């Protein structure tokens, strides 16, 4: 057993915190990720996590816990993207991109001011790439609560969300408030992204959001089953990632751990690529016309 789990793994309090946070993040990301993939909003998901970087840097500057910075900035960006015009598929990408560009500029400023204020330069690395082992135990209740809220919102909105994703027109004729559903969904996404930004870092939270969900949607047809599979896959990747990162302190180069984020990303990608070995079964077959429609001018 010691070959697999290095001594002291489960006894370490930081590992316990890491596993709790990792579990919450993996399950929330898996469930929300399925909708993100079905709705074709991977870019929005990724942008929200990058925008969260800005919040993290701002929080670092203000001296409060990063998690709150991630959360506030993510929610603000989600509103802004929706406001500029996220409804149309093409306008959406540009609106997302513009918000992202502006936010990255702010992140640069905050990080610069932050390094002026304190001598520590490692902050930008932690904010960008995360470090699940240094999550403060005080943040854990907030993380769990935020994850549960995001999951509850998604559970309440599951049906209208799926309907608006598959056919906005039918949803509209049935009286579904498409825009409000979209905003609520982006908010849940922002919360989830801030959670994973804490765990595996802002720039890599996309891996947990998109990877397991895309894998699950290649394996099973029903969205509900896909959510379960995605959550399980994300959970496996996070746990094994935490375990490997803990073990990696004993790997070469000696006395230097590998980042958890790397293991999580690598495992998630390996899972996705493994699905290519199977005969592909897609939830939504992509027709050439759909592609073409996306490329034509609005």
């Amino acid at each position, binding site marked *: 057993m010691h070959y697999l789990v290095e001594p002291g793994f489960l006894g370490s309090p930081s590992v316990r915190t890491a596993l709790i946070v990792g579990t919450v993040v993996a399950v929330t990301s898996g469930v929300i990720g399925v909708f993100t993939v079905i709705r074709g909003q991977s870019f929005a998901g990724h942008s929200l996590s990058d925008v969260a970087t800005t919040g993290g840097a701002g929080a670092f500057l203000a001296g409060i816990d990063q998690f709150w910075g991630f959360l506030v900035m993510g929610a603000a960006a989600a509103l802004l993207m929706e406001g500029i015009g996220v409804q149309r598929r093409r306008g959406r990408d540009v609106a997302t991109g513009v918000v992202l560009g502006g936010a990255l500029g702010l992140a640069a400023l905050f990080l610069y001011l932050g390094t002026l204020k304190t001598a520590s330069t490692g902050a930008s690395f932690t904010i960008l790439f995360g470090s699940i082992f240094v999550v403060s135990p005080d943040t854990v209740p907030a993380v769990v609560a935020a994850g549960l809220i995001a999951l509850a919102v998604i559970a309440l909105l599951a049906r209208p969300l799926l309907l608006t994703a598959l056919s906005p027109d039918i949803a509209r004729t049935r009286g579904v408030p498409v825009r409000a559903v979209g905003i609520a969904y982006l908010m849940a996404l922002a919360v989830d992204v801030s959670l994973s930004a804490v765990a595996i870092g802002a720039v890599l939270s996309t891996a947990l959001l998109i990877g397991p969900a895309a894998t699950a949607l290649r394996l099973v047809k029903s969205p509900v089953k896909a959510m379960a599979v995605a959550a399980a896959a994300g959970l496996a990747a996070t746990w094994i990632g935490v375990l490997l990162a803990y073990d990696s302190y004993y790997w070469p180069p000696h006395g230097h751990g590998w980042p958890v984020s*790397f293991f999580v990303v690598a495992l998630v990608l390996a899972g996705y690529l493994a699905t290519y070995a199977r005969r592909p079964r897609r939830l939504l077959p992509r027709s050439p016309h759909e592609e073409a429609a996306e490329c034509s001018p609005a």
Partner: protein
Amino acid sequence: MFTGLMANTWIAASVVAVIAGMTGYFAVLRGQTFAAHAIPNGAFAGAAGASLIGVNVIVGLAVVAVAGALGIGALGSKARHDVITALTLVLMLGLGAVFVSMSTQYAQETYSLLFGQVTGVSQGEVAPIAGLGLAAALAIGVAFRPLMLTSALPEVAEARGVSTRKVDLYFLLVMAVATSMTVPVVGALLMFSLMIGPAAAARSVTARPGVALALSVAIALAITWLSIALFYRTNWPLGFFVGTGGALFYLVGLGARRLAVPRSLTRS
């Protein structure tokens, strides 16, 4: 402000702005905003890896950027484009995290790779940047018609025997080349701001391709020059001015259009 190292900065940044304005216009037109974000951002891994093993940073950037473009282009046609782009990006970033964590001098290095180090342009770096810039501009100029056709009328392009897939891949590779020269100057994250902001602003004002392309380049140049001047005065990071400047121009363009065109027409 225009002497010594700053002169190199002005030249290099202007080349970067022109290329970003051009490639950005097509990226917005073709709906490849996400790829435009993913390639420079992911190429950061190449720079981190190169500096870890002691190779020229531009070589590392070029290798990873081209690999990323090929990955997105090759796998993107098999599954959903945005999912593949996202996964390619995180793969590159994950590698970048490992390289950065292994390197001993990470923090400052990471910061300047992500957010740019425009004042650090040396005399010897100006020539390769200008050369790569010219190559990227030529590559777009040569393929201007097929790029335009596949962006605007993909069906017509297919009917005329122009492969949308091949043009897609070609454009991704051009972006990769443009990226490898611009990342050391403006940084991985802000290359994207410089590509999307001006192009989106230009397209919100005019629909005519030639005018919009020229306008996009002009706005990119204006933002860059303004940013360098402000950076010189305040010593705040260049990325801040570039990023917020791009977003600001877009909002101005959007506002101008809302005023000029009745709301019902903008929805088309």
